[in-house]
């Protein structure tokens, strides 16, 4: 009905996050990009399970209706909690790296070809 707008939003979210991961040099900006990619994937799973004119898979009594698909929603629920756990682990390593190298720039940390 609405001309694929949620799928286009998914593609743009993943591309913006990928831009931040590939081209930014600050480590926290890279982590923000990873968070954006993960949000895009979650939105993609939920959008795949949506049916036109459906209601949520939660029953009150026994009425019959079209329901949206429950399995992608359950997997997305698992994915969100894993996402925040992995984000906390990444940020802990970033704080450790900052205390060791005293910088957040990726190319200075790996001893890059700048100077």
């Amino acid at each position, binding site marked *: 009905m609405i001309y694929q707008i949620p799928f286009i939003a998914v593609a743009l979210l993943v591309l913006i996050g990928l831009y931040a991961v590939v081209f930014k040099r600050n480590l926290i900006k890279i982590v923000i990009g990873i968070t954006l990619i993960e949000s895009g994937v979650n939105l993609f799973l939920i959008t795949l399970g949506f049916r036109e004119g459906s209601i*949520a898979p939660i029953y*009150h*009594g*026994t009425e019959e209706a079209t329901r949206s698909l429950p399995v992608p929603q359950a997997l997305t*629920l698992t994915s969100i909690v894993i996402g925040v*756990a992995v984000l*906390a682990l990444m940020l*802990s390593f970033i*704080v450790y790296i900052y205390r060791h190298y005293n910088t957040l720039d990726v190319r200075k940390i790996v001893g890059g070809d700048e100077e």
Partner: protein
Amino acid sequence: MSGMSKIVKTISATILPFITIYGLYIIAHGHLTPGGGFQGGAIVASGFAMIVVAFGSIWTMEKIKEKHLSIIESLGAIGFIGLAFFGLLFGAKMFFANFLVKQDVIPFFNQIGQGLSNINTAGLLPLMNLAVGLKVIAGLFAIVLVMAYATSKIKEGTAK
């Protein structure tokens, strides 16, 4: 960070029981209404994170040690896996079997509160919700508390 002003402290201490009750309600009714262990645990952990922000992490670390949080999280994990292993003994003899629903493993359990949308119709699901809720509360709050305490130590310059 040694806490915010008195107004913030009072308001957050007043509001914390309501957030906790709401999160526990969401955990307990997870098989009837939208919600469950993950969502309610995230809400309760958000309330405790508000306490960390308002009172300062050093004050909070004196009250709640991370050791206690690890004990609670391990209890949740053991409860979850133990409930899964009990399925090997009763009912369908299967890992993760829902052995309490429609079977008389515990006598008269299914006769209390008959009906479709009732609190004990789902057998094992509310117990698993409770175990996973404990695990998520303790895990997420431990992450926030440990990171806040360590970074405030770094900020003060007392870190090694």
